[in-house]
């Protein structure tokens, strides 16, 4: 059942992330690092904001006040790695989605995906993306593909997996060094590494000593759509009340697109 990632010998962990919304300036470095790391193809000319693939996507939110009192904040949304009744894993008809008990990472297996997109309807964070097109790179640019990650074919679903390739690499390094467990910071997803504001912290939520666990406990921390009860593992943190409100409370207004 379990994928290769849960090997005997490696100490189980529950990887999670803490994002400081007060530090994020919405520069988008995380998105680019993510796409570079995971071999996301540049979209074709007719791709739209809703058909493109952005495992990591930064949303701009506003306090809704008009000029001159407007304020903005940026919320990076990636797969929230739900830990309980993971919505997407439950619905996949052919076990193309697996929650790795050794890491808590929700993994998508494109080579088994049928492309029914049921998981996408199940995901409340819209963190799953479908390959509407054949992946195409400008001539020569496929040379820049990351060898640790296989590009996905058309017609399958994909999403953030906390840079699985990096986890494997880190494990191999640790094994080579004869260690059973990874050192803190030895395994970090590309987005966290790339954030120039240091707004993202990654680590083992079960390790009480870890920075991420500390931030998760922080009074300013919250999770998005927490009440759905799916135990997401991405924590957001802000000292600005309006940001927290905008990110957690359903809007009342009836206006729409």
């Amino acid at each position: 059942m379990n994928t290769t990632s849960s090997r005997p010998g490696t100490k189980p962990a529950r990887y999670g992330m803490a994002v400081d919304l007060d530090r994020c300036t919405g520069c988008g470095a995380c998105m680019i690092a993510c796409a570079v790391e995971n071999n996301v193809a540049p979209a074709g000319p007719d791709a739209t904001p809703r058909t493109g693939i952005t495992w990591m996507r930064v949303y701009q939110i506003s306090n809704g006040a008009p000029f001159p009192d407007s304020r903005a904040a940026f919320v990076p949304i990636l797969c929230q790695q739900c830990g309980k009744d993971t919505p997407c894993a439950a619905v996949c008809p052919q076990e193309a989605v697996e929650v790795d008990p050794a890491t808590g990472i929700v993994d998508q297996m494109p080579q088994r995906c049928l492309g029914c997109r049921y998981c996408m309807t199940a995901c409340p964070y819209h963190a799953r993306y479908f390959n509407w097109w054949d992946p195409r790179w400008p001539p020569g640019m496929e040379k820049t593909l990351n060898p640790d990650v296989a590009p996905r074919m058309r017609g399958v679903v994909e999403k953030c997996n906390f840079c699985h390739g990096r986890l494997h690499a880190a494990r191999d390094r640790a094994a080579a060094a004869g260690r059973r467990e990874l050192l803190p910071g030895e395994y970090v997803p590309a987005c966290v590494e790339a954030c120039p504001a240091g707004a993202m912290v990654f680590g083992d939520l079960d390790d009480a000593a870890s920075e991420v666990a500390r931030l998760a406990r922080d009074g300013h921390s919250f999770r998005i759509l927490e009440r759905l009860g799916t135990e997401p593992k991405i924590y957001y943190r802000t000292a600005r009340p309006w940001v927290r409100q905008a990110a957690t409370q359903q809007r009342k207004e009836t206006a729409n697109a």
Partner: protein
Amino acid sequence: MGFTRRDLLRFSGGSAAGLLLTPVPWTLLHDTAVLTENWPGVPRPRHGEIATRYTTCTLCAAGCGVRARCVEGQPVSLAGVAGHPGSRGALCPAGLAGHHLTFCRGRATEPLAKGKPVGIDHALASVSAAIAECGSGESVAILDARPGRAASLVYRRFLAGLPKAVHCAPPDAQPYGGFGIDLENTRAILSFGARVLDGWLSPGRVLANRSCFQLIQAEAAYSRTASLADVWVPLPPGGEETFAAAVARALQGDDADAQAAHVARILLHNQPAIAIGGGAAAARINQILGSVGRPGGFLPRRDFMPATNIAALPDHSIRVLLIEEPAANDSLPWDVVARKLAQNPMVVALTPWLDGCAQHADYVIPAPVYLESLDEAPTPEGCTVAGFSLSPALLPTPPKLMAPAEFILRLAHDPSAYSEILKQRVAAIKKEARGTIFTYADAKSTRVADFASADDLWKAMLGGAAWFDDPIRSSRTESLPRAGWSNPPAVPSPEYPLVLISADSPPPHGSPLMSKLYRESGLRRSAIAAAVHPETGRAHGLADGGRAIVKIPGDSFTAQVIFDAAVMPGVIQSAGRASSPASIRRA
């Protein structure tokens, strides 16, 4: 007896049943599975020897250290260099995607004369001829994208040999002249439209200190910085001077309007404080705050190589202009440049791109992009000490491409290669024996003096290293340059009832991946998006999301209208455009 339909039925039925017993259907299934797994057209990433190499980013003036992960020599991902004193281990989005530039469309691949391919020698010849023909009162100018480099020295040396020549820089280059900003100790920043949180100085350094300073953003545009600043002072377009004066009065205890007073209070309570951007306005306030030459303020450094602000040149004075393509997010307002050109001028663009200044050029000399050739990064913008680092090439230089410095050397009939010039620069550093070398690979700092020879230093720097000078205690008293250029305030008129102002820079020229991500996430509005306050929009008969035609004196463009209640009424916010009066109507 003949072969009846019934026999046919029997036969087909039988064979169908029989087929199921053969392995055929099962192999077929298996093969389809295999097919879908190696879907035709999906490239396989190259596997091979993986190496880490180091270089320095030259895409902007920040000069961040770069760690490149290479497969068989080909960079597959870039990252910052931990502990880098200038960049604090950070890279901006453009820097992260720098290794894609090579594959971008719209590159200049061979010398062009009026759009037609020509040999490089022919280009050289005709440029020299044009220079020779320069009449009296007409000058030859090189627009140096980033003065203070070894390349700049090459330019100066070449220009020195000419009767009338000028080494100039884009209007917003060298905003702080020979000063750096002691950001680490600054407690408050009053910014007149500087993109403090959006690419100012080196992002890593700014964001690392963000929690330590109060940010007051004074500008008309609801820019990213404005939207995130601690205080946003929405000035009417061109209102910097007035507001600065008010703040100045408030700082000196005279009465001023509430907003200015509030800002002044913040500045006074969060010392040391500085003001940036906004030309004279900022300079005045800095003077009052005494922020020049003290910790937490502007600190002078060595190696300042002043270049003339092109905006300051007399009009119609340039006969031959050689332009070095400025970095993606520095704007080169062409109208400012055009004003300076004499009749039938010759404009030579030394650029990797066809869509930048090449559009206005008679000759295009294709330049390699970042990572394609050995390059240099001068003192990072706003750094309090002089600095220098090499940007070793990680990719082969494509044929027919020529670094701007190389071209000027050829033009000057100077046999030495650009690399030698760089080597001399390094040698000079070794000779002066000041400062430290930060080597990227081991994140160690070594005194320059401790290097055995200039060659060792050269080797070290080729392997990825940055030199930083020692701080100086100077008694330089000259005040700050009037940073940037404040073009005349755009005043609305009956014909142009609105004001077009630039918000953030548009998605930078570069990686197709980056442009895709920005487009899809809507993080950066494209240059053709025009944001207006809903009321303003309705008043001009616009519809949210609709298309509109924006007219400005002497130009017009179609834009996609975005209603944004955060935008100041009466203005049109569009990315990367010079401020100007404008009118808008539904397309």
